[in-house]
């Protein structure tokens, strides 16, 4: 009985589809696509509204001071997000400074310089890096990288910069534990390389061979080809790739929590421990109550806005480059 009715409805639909006109089907297709798009926007708006409502008590209590304040005192219920915002931005910037040249190097090597038999294994290896769970980066960072970083970078650099103006502040650590903002930035760099490198590689590979060959034909060196022909061609897409990496660096939680040292204090040195918005939420959310919970949600809201601003700036940058 059940099977029979299903067959019937199938036949119905089949004959029905011939009845519905082309424009009708088009309209259905359009509606489906539109509702998918609206769903994403609705979820996005829902998250933003929920976070804003959740964070409202903190915003109301501290006002603009919440953005600039640097206290995080659960004892007296005083909260300010600035150290976490600064930590988020500085780790992301360090990650980009290290990660972007590395990724572009990989992409150029894979598309221009590497012999054919090297390309596929290396490209696969880079893509596999993207599939490593972030907690593994965190564990590796804490157990392997942190002791090495303390011994071979933090201690010698701190000894060297002690007492010097500016670098003596930015690159000096009173207790060189290996944990800190710089460590987190380096681990993040490893994590965003696969994203930027594989997109940049795809973009470079898509550039018409004619362009490259003509450049070589007029006597350009490999460097000149990469610098003056390939990178300008792929420029817009590469900026897009970098922004994708930046997005990951801003929001990364687990790996950063392991290696940043989790200090809710503002420090002037990148070798000192700090915290990011995401790591602070990961650390404190479980046990937070009342205003502290609200302050955490409010920092989440700020991270949302920071990411949004970064994306808008990236869009504007891409648009300007296209116009040129």
């Amino acid at each position, binding site marked *: 009985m059940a099977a029979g009715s299903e067959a019937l409805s199938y036949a119905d639909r089949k004959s029905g589809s011939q009845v519905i006109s082309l424009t009708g089907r088009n309209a259905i297709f359009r509606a489906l696509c539109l509702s998918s798009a609206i769903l994403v926007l609705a979820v996005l708006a829902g998250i933003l509204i929920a976070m804003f409502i959740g964070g409202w008590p903190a915003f109301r209590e501290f006002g603009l001071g919440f953005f600039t304040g640097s206290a995080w005192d*659960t004892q007296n219920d005083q909260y300010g997000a600035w150290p976490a915002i600064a930590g988020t931005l500085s780790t992301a910037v360090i990650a980009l400074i290290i990660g972007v040249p590395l990724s572009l190097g990989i992409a150029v090597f894979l598309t221009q310089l590497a012999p054919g038999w090297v390309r596929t294994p290396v490209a696969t290896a880079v893509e596999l890096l993207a599939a490593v769970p972030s907690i593994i980066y965190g564990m590796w960072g804490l157990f392997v990288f942190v002791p090495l970083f303390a011994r071979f970078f933090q201690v010698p650099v701190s000894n060297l910069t002690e007492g010097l103006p500016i670098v003596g502040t930015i690159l000096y650590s009173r207790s060189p534990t290996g944990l800190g903002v710089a460590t987190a930035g380096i681990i993040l760099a490893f994590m965003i390389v696969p994203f930027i490198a594989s997109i940049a590689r795809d973009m470079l590979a898509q550039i018409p061979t004619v362009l490259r060959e003509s450049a070589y034909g007029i006597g350009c060196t490999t460097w000149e080809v990469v610098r003056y022909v390939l990178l300008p061609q792929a420029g817009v897409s590469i900026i897009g790739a970098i922004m994708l990496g930046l997005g990951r660096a801003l929001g990364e939680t687990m790996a950063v929590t392991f290696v940043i040292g989790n200090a809710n204090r503002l420090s002037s040195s990148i070798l000192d421990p700090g915290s990011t918005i995401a790591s602070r939420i990961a650390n404190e959310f479980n*046990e937070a109550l009342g205003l502290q919970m609200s302050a955490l949600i409010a920092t989440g809201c700020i991270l949302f806005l920071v990411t949004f601003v970064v994306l808008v700036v990236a869009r504007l940058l891409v648009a300007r480059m296209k116009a040129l």
Partner: protein
Amino acid sequence: MKFRELAAVAGMTIVMMGSASAIDITGAGATFPFPLYSKWAEAYKAASGNGLNYQSIGSGGGIRQIKANTVDFGASDMPLKGDDLDKDGLAQFPSAIGAEVPAISVPGIEARQMKLTGPILADIYLGKISKWDDPKIKALNPDLKLPSAGINVVYRSDGSGTTFVWTDYLSRVSDEWKSKVGANTSVSWPIGVGGKGNEGVSATVKQIPNSIGYVEYAYAKQNKLSYALIQNKDGKFPVPEIESFQAAAANADWKSAPGFGIILNNQPGEKAWPVTSATFILMHKKSDKPDRATAALKFFDWAYSNGDKLASDLEYVPLPANVKDQVRAVWKSDIKDTSGKPLF
């Protein structure tokens, strides 16, 4: 057709019988007693057929869940104060006792070799004592070869009952700590780096030479961490072990705080380990799910009677017998269903 109906009825009866006889109690909260509760739950299931589903989401989460009445009991390492308990109509009682030790990683120094005092620990965590060969530490340890290295201070970065017990101890022994930092599940640390969870702290202490961090004793023992001794209120340096934790619990006046909410830090007694604390259970005084509340009380009654051996195996300290009797009396007098009938 007939046969099918019969089978369905039989199946339903079996399901209903099953649900009537076995109740899976639900609980949520503190991570510290989680290994103990799961051990107890396993043995209790074998003995009674009733299970326990305990989620170790942290003390704060446990308090939230029991207030929202989504679990049969909540668990917290930080006792709630009397008016907090009254406000939400909660009853509170201890389930077991644990202790914390200062784990250290000073090259060449083994577990239990270094001696420290509470005020020194407070000064280390305040950043006032910053080298291992500080005169104050040297005076206590004349025979040890202390390095002239900076002390790397490590704390728990996640909100945690362990942090509450540690900072409460420091507040009791140092007025400066009390006024500048205070005691809570997370505080504004003046110096140091944070590790997430016991494992984060112990990994950091192990990885970075010349570090100090506080962990639960059970954790330090299982992971073979080196740790220092702390001077107690009587001026002695007891070895952290079940006997010294029990000594801390024995002298305590449990009736002095509502809901047995006393903190066992810095208790008098020659053998008392100074950083000791109980972990607590929260339940509603007026239960709208009396069957489940009764089942939870039965579970803890069983654990009080039969769980001491399991607890000591895991380095938790069972409650003294007189405290258990006091708790049972409170179950009888305080925990009732909505009509006021006692559940235990």
